């Protein structure tokens, strides 16, 4: 720049000197009094234009001579001539060397665009040089040729100079504009550099953010997240201090929870309702705060200079409840933490926009990461709780199972243990009753019997109930006489009723089937219980029992709304109503009656007997029979009505069951009833035949006798349940058995074949078994034996007496 300036100055001064020289020569054509000092200066300038190093010398040589037109000591014209000569020489030298140098340097640099201009300029300079050179010869007497050459050279020089001058008018603005353009480009480059710098910084920042985020999100541990955040921020931004203030449980204070530099942050707390804090919390941008703010006074102020700038940003603490299923987290979270970042003091650094942006982004990421961590913590806690609950439930289940098992074991044992002595007591007492007793003793024995019966009932009830509750009770199904059940109940209750002077009436509907299929014992128990209660709780009046078939209309009438029995083929619903005129029951107490062990207060005072299990058991039985039981009472003192409906089956054939009737065997003992049992006796010995016939007839059988195998085969039919055959006579008997089997192959109801024999050898028994006989009985047969034989046969369908 300075060099350029110098060069420009010199070239300008050179041109001006030349200009002056030519002007002067023009004005003063004679060679005398040329302004030599001007020439001298021009040559001086010329020289220094080219050789700056020599300028000093030249200046030195020239400063001896000044240009104040003082006549020197020696002859002026010779001196002037001398000077002019030297100057011309040097000018020519310079003029010739300049283009050479130009060419040299242009050749060196390949980018110079104005070659043509250079050529022109070179030509101009060369001609000027030539002119001056030729001028050397004009100092002395010169020929005309020289003058002509001089003139030519001058003319040419003039032409070229003018051309150059004209050219330069075009060129110099261009050159100048190049220069300006160069300047402009330089500025632009500087600007781009700056921007590049900025972008790079931003990219760096972005990288930092990503890395930070990655660090933060790579862990679900809250503590690690926060610590990492602080560390990374500190590193990225070169912070002096970075701190996190968390809200306390009360929500009224902020507590210093994490810091970057100090390892054990003392539990500073700051009230949350500080204007600065509120300002920070109200905006989601990073806010510059004063270092004197309580949250910013983290370290003891050590530097003498200003502490670094402080920025604070809020970190929303999100809870699970903030995450709706379809929306982003609600903005209305009130819980914020505060992150405070301090630039190093004494550094005069300032917060840049991109740094603030970084901080904001990080704060958001931290919030999200914290919420994730919180959610994870919650779910872990929930899972732990569930596991604990599971364990507890498992334990409870096992305990319950153990308890049930223990109870069942206990019941099983007690069942046996309790029943055995009871049985002994009852049996022996009843036996005792049969013996000779005084009236007093009889009374005592009766009391014992009654009490033990009650106790036995109670034991049974308890055991039944437990079985009912377990669901292990199964009803039996058999055909029984329904009417007689009622009669039996009536007979049992009549004595008690008559003692209490209650009248007991039974009404059985005409359309109620005589026979039904169901659990006779439990139905009896139920009716007995209900009627018994009616009698028990009535002091006077009457108890009426009505039994009838429940009609569909009466179902709707039933007070139970959900009960909709569906009568089907082969089944009917028995409805029994027991009305008493007793104390009645408060309608509020009715539900309690069916729960076990619940005692109605007023009734309890009257009757010590009854554990309260009765109705509960009845209800269960009724339910098992797919029925319902309910009580209606208008109130205390107005009596009550117990109604129940149970489902019973209709037997297919009325004579299917064996109708029991006790044959009167001189009234002394009850015999097993084989009434009407059709039996065939085959015996060829008349006496034996008669005896056997008599025996079986005595037991009530319907006996047919045959005396030969052929006759037997002819007579035997499916009506005969048993065929007694004498096998003493050879092999006839065995063959007969085989033939009978053949006659009724595959019939389950074919007659049982029993061999009646006096033979006591094993061969007979084996033969009998071989031919597929159902039994073997040894003669002679007593009545009892025959009774036993028949009952065993009918029960088991096989009887082989041990021989």
């Amino acid at each position, binding site marked *: 720049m300075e060099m350029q300036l110098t060069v420009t100055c010199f070239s300008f001064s050179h041109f001006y000197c030349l200009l002056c020289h030519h002007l002067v020569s023009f004005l003063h054509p004679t060679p005398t009094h040329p302004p030599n000092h001007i020439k001298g200066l021009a040559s001086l300038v010329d020289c220094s234009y080219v050789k700056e190093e020599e300028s000093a010398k030249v200046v030195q040589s020239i400063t001896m001579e000044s240009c104040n037109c003082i006549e020197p000591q020696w002859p002026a014209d010779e001196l002037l001539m001398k000077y002019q000569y030297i100057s011309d020489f040097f000018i020519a030298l310079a003029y010739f060397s300049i283009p050479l140098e130009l060419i040299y340097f242009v050749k060196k640099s390949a980018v110079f665009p104005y070659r043509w201009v250079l050529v022109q300029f070179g030509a101009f300079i060369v001609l000027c040089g030539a002119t001056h050179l030729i001028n050397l010869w004009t100092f002395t007497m010169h020929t005309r040729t020289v003058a002509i050459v001089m003139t030519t050279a001058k003319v040419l020089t003039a032409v070229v100079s003018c051309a150059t001058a004209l050219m330069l008018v075009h060129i110099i603005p261009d050159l100048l504009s190049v220069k300006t353009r160069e300047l402009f480009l330089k500025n632009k480059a500087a600007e781009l550099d700056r921007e590049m710098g900025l972008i790079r910084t931003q990219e760096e920042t972005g990288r930092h953010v990503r890395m930070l985020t990655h660090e933060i999100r790579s862990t679900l541990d809250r503590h690690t997240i926060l610590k990492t955040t602080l560390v990374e921020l500190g590193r990225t931004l070169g912070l002096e201090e970075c701190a996190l203030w968390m809200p306390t449980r009360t929500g009224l204070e902020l507590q210093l929870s994490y810091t970057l530099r100090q390892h054990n942050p003392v539990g500073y707390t700051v009230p949350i309702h500080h204007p600065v804090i509120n300002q920070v919390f109200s905006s989601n941008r990073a806010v510059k705060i004063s270092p004197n703010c309580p949250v910013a006074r983290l370290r003891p102020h050590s530097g003498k200079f200003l502490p670094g700038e402080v920025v604070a940003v809020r970190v929303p603490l999100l809870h699970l409840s903030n995450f709706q299923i379809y929306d982003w987290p609600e903005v209305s979270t009130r819980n914020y933490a505060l992150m405070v970042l301090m630039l190093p003091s004494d550094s005069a650094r300032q917060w840049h926009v991109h740094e603030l942006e970084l901080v904001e982004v990080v704060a958001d990421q931290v919030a999200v990461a914290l919420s994730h961590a919180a959610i994870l913590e919650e779910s872990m806690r929930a899972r732990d709780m569930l596991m604990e609950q599971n364990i507890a439930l498992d334990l409870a289940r096992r305990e319950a199972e153990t308890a049930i098992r223990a109870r069942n074991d206990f019941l099983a044992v007690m069942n046996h243990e309790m029943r055995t002595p009871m049985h002994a007591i009852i049996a022996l007492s009843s036996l005792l009753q049969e013996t000779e007793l005084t009236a007093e003793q009889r009374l005592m024995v009766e009391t014992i019997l009654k009490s033990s019966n009650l106790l036995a009932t109670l034991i049974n009830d308890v055991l039944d109930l437990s079985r009912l509750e377990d669901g292990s009770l199964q009803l039996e199904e058999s055909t029984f006489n329904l009417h007689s059940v009622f009669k039996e109940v009536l007979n049992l209750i009549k004595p008690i009723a008559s003692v209490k002077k209650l009248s007991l009436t039974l009404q059985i509907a005409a359309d109620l089937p005589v026979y039904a299929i169901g659990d006779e014992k439990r139905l009896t128990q139920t009716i007995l219980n209900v009627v018994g209660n009616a009698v028990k709780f009535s002091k006077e009046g009457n108890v009426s029992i009505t039994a009838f078939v429940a009609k569909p209309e009466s179902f709707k009438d039933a007070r139970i709304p959900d009960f909709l029995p569906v009568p089907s083929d082969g089944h009917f619903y028995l409805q029994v109503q027991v009305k008493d005129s007793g104390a009645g029951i408060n309608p509020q107490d009715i539900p309690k009656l069916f729960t076990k062990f619940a005692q109605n207060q007023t009734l309890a005072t009257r009757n010590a007997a009854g554990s309260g299990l009765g109705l509960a058991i009845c209800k269960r039985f009724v339910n098992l029979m797919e029925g319902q039981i309910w009580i209606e009472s208008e109130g205390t003192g107005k009596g009550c009505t117990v109604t129940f409906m149970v489902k019973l089956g209709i037997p297919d054939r009325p004579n299917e069951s064996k109708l029991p009737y006790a044959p*009167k*065997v*001189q009234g002394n003992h009850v015999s097993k009833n084989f009434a009407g049992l059709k039996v065939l006796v085959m015996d*060829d*010995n*008349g*006496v*034996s035949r*008669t*005896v056997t016939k*008599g*025996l079986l*007839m*005595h037991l009530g059988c319907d006996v047919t006798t045959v005396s030969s195998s052929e006759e037997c085969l002819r007579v035997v039919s499916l009506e005969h349940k048993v065929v007694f055959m*004498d096998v*003493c*006579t050879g092999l006839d008997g065995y063959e007969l058995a085989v033939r009978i089997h053949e006659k009724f192959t595959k019939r389950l109801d074919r007659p049982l074949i029993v061999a009646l024999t*006096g033979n006591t050898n094993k061969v007979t028994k084996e033969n009998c078994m071989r031919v597929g006989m159902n039994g073997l009985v040894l*003669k*002679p*047969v*007593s*009545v009892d034996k025959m009774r036993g034989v028949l009952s065993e046969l009918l029960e088991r369908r096989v009887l082989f007496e041990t021989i």
Partner: protein
Amino acid sequence: MTKTESNKTMDVNVMVQLQRQLVDYTASLFHEGFLDEQFNQLQQLQDETNPDFVVEVVTLFFEDAERLLNELTKALSQESIDFKRLDAHVHQLKGSSSSIGAQRIHRVCISFRNSCEEQNVEGCLKSLQQVKQEYSLVKSKLETLFKMEQQLLAAGFSR
């Protein structure tokens, strides 16, 4: 005492006496082994539906036994004795006698059968002799028994 009353008293005495006689006689039969437990069973089978059961059965036995004894005699008087047939008859008799409880006949029948198996003619003849003897004995005894019972029934006692 009026005549009817004294008659009644006398009847009662007679009845008591008769009953005692019957009981004693029956006991002796058992004691002597003519009858066994089976006879008791027969008596038990007698009831309102079957009032003459015992008599019927015993009568049947007598008929049966006599027939068999005739057969046996005939069979043994043959030149070539058919032991099988003999055995069959004896078997029958054995069965019948055991059915009514005629113990002694039953026992003789057993030994008779043994002789038949051995094809011992002598033994058979001897057994036949015995059977006949026993049969006549038991027959008379039972007949006496029945007579006594009838007397009792006539005297107004029901069993």
